[in-house]
């Protein structure tokens, strides 16, 4: 297949089908340019050629039914064609290939979380093997989100209460940006993630690495990475300033005032509960709680808690 480098208008094509979509885009683009120049050119020419002169009257309008019908029917044929080709490409791109690898994508305010077929979960980062047909199964914990990867020309809303899917086959290795394209509240613009398209070996290796700290990192350092990838900093500051949720500076090991209950000691159990079941205890002053539950495996949780303890 033909692969173009990123152009002025469109990003790089990194998935199957992107080239076709771009082909349609440029087809309409050049059609539009020509049409626009013709129309506006004619307009400017007429304005200049038939500017008002003394004693020269406008010519009375004649009946032009044939012309009218011409410019009613010709576009009709054209748009029928456009509809046809674009719908064919759309259906082709939404059809999941036989035996596609299934990856779960969960949107929540305001982070993306991915779950591989092995059951390993990872926030904020998605590894995909190059050339392998993949099906992303989207879901949302709270409000509407939309999973959007410009390089794949793929977008689909994640709707609470319902599953939806994206079919894609990445074709070019590299690092690509994920956006949330459906407005979802305060940190909508911070709901980003990265897709890494890698070789099969690198993909397999990455899956191995997910559940243990990267070599050479302490649990706390790994916790920091997880904390950032999970989108936690969009709501919880680490410097004491107030964001959507309470700042986590110096929380670990201190008493926390709880709304509608006795104060609680922020020990390991408390922190664990706050991550897994955020609604269980809400710090006073934060009645409008917004945090969705997070799922981590034990080593990851330990790393997160280790990191939280370092925030002094």
């Amino acid at each position, binding site marked *: 297949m033909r692969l173009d480098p990123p152009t002025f208008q469109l990003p790089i094509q990194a998935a199957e089908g992107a080239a076709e979509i771009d082909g349609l885009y440029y087809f309409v683009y050049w059609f539009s340019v020509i049409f626009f120049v013709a129309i506006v050119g004619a307009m400017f020419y007429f304005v200049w050629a038939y500017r008002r002169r003394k004693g020269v009257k406008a010519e009375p309008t004649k009946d032009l039914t044939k012309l009218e019908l011409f410019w009613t029917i010709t576009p009709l044929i054209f748009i029928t064609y456009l509809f046809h080709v674009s719908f064919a490409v759309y259906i082709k791109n939404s059809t999941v290939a036989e035996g596609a690898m299934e990856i779960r994508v969960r949107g929540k305010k305001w982070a993306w979380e991915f779950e591989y077929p092995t059951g390993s979960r990872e926030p904020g980062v998605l590894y995909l093997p190059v050339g392998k047909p993949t099906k992303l199964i989207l879901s949302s914990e709270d409000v509407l989100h939309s999973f959007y990867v410009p390089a794949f020309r793929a977008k689909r809303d994640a709707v609470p209460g319902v599953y939806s899917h994206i079919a894609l086959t990445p074709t070019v290795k590299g690092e690509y940006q994920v956006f949330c394209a459906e*407005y979802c509240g305060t940190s909508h613009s911070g709901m980003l993630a990265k897709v890494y398209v890698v070789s099969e070996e690198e993909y397999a290796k990455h899956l191995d690495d997910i559940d243990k700290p990267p070599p050479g990192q302490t649990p706390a350092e790994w916790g920091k990475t997880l904390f950032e990838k999970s989108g936690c900093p969009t709501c919880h500051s680490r410097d004491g300033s107030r964001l959507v949720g309470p700042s986590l500076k110096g929380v670990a090991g201190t008493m926390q005032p709880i709304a509608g209950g006795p104060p609680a000691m922020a020990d390991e159990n408390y922190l664990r509960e706050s991550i897994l079941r955020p609604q269980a205890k809400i710090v006073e002053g934060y009645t409008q709680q917004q945090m969705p539950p997070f799922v981590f495996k034990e080593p990851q949780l330990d790393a997160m808690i280790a990191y939280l303890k370092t925030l002094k």
Partner: protein
Amino acid sequence: MATVATSPEHHDAHGDPNASFLDVAKGPMSWIVTLDHKRIGIMYLISVTVAFALGGIFALLVRAELFTAGKTLMDADTYNRMFSLHGVVMVFLFIIPSIPAAMGNIILPIQLGAKDVAFPRLNLMSLYIYIFGACFGLYSMVHGGVDTGWTFYTPYSSSDPACGQLTPCGPPGVGSPSAVIPMTLSAFIMGFSSILTGVNFLATIHKMRAPGITWRRLSLFTWSLYATSVIQILATPVLAITLLLLTMERFAGLGIFDARRGGDPGLFPHCVWFSSHPAVYIMIVPGMGVVSELIGTFSRRDIVGYMFIAMSSLGLALLGFLVWGHHLFVAGMSEYATMVFSALTFLVAIPSGVKIFNWVATLYKGSISLQTPMLWALGFIFLFTIGGLTGLFLGMLAVDVHLHDTYFVVAHFHYVMVGGTVMGFFGGLQDWWPKFTGKMYDEKKGVAGWALVFLGFNVTFLTQFVLGSRGMPRRYYDYLPEFQQLHQISTVGSWILGLGFLILFWNFAESLMKGPRAPRNPWGSAALEWQTPSPPPLFNFVKDPVVNRGPYEYHLATDAELDEGMADLDAELAKANGADPVKKTEPAKSEPAEKAEPAKSKGDEGDDEEKS
């Protein structure tokens, strides 16, 4: 325009029966309880202009915030409120009432040769409903604003995180903590203003036409208002009930739109867009009507394909109800529905194209004068063509998946809404300003304002097409560094745009205070509204008009009719320059006796029809 006195009533009531509607009564009370469609229109005009300024300030703040990535002026929550309020104010408070309710109110009855709209009291009531609704909107703005976007998508808008304080609900919602309920109520209430205006105009157009104004002699502006009324009556009530359901969903947890209560978040966009997509045509179709008027007036030529333009307005109105699903192409709609909606969406291109072709064809062999209103009309064609063509990208399903909810969409609908409606609005305002106020404005400032708006607009939004196709999603407070350059160009464009509007308003204010008095027909137009004094008398015409030709049949109009106004203008300008402003009101100018030969011209017209 030929007129004959058919009923001499009304001429005995006031001291001067032909005093302009502005002079016929004085004092604020005479405005508050007026039933005169022109005064109601003027009050609408003032309201929507204030709303436009307010929405414009929000827009400038949004653009300013985006000047740099990250925080520039405000935090994310404030930014979200800014763009939501920009949308809400511009859509509900400005664009929807702008051309129909404000300008249509003043011009429509005059173009029909009627004394008033069919239901003057209802007309006044619509205005007050609008203002009442706007008050709710203002209440919402000062009590936390709204951060849901103007479409109020559920469940973000419908689930209240403060839930449980008023009602015995379950876990708190995940949605917006802002003042959504007053804002939805505001739009709900203003909807009825729009509906009643539509009802009023529909009855007016059907039943209030002066003798001689056949369906083929309606102005195209009237045709566009006719189409608009149809949409207002059919679409707006659905928006009203949807917003009512949303309000109740947020207040009482109905479980219709919120998945956590067993509802379907996908139903809400259906309900909203079934009504709001036609509402998009409430916004653009009247603008097209204005442009048709301007093209006719300033090229002094009968509009090519009159019936095609008229019918394309109706066609847009009807198609508007069949295409709403294209807002849901990536929302998980059934594939069968996407297919139907994509196919129907493309059909919108036909009536839009027909209009553009006919306008350009009208210029051919016309007698074109490039006065300010005409510049707006040409700007409209330029920008609306871009807006329409970029619609093709979005109609194509496969391409839409990439472009949906990006800046491409933002640019597309601004090219239609601003490049279309706002251009039409200001074009119409500059065209009819002499008729509304009886004052002329400074042509140079008008042109300068137009040029800056046109330039600023393109700088602002052309860049956004590129931003969007490169993948920049809309409603983003923050963005990746690679988008910064384009965002900065766009923001600079918004400043030029704002400056242009400032000059325009300055020009209007100056015209009001010390503009030279406007003649009856400053543009030499053949349309009916220009055949009555500026500003018109209380009942619009000195004598009840009988019309014997269409509004664009320049070949049937006499020179006296067309040029008398121009001569008047020259005289007025000379007087103004001579520092001798005339104070007295325009004398009741009896219409010039004309030597038009209706019989013969009728024959010509008949011939034309037979030839076809």
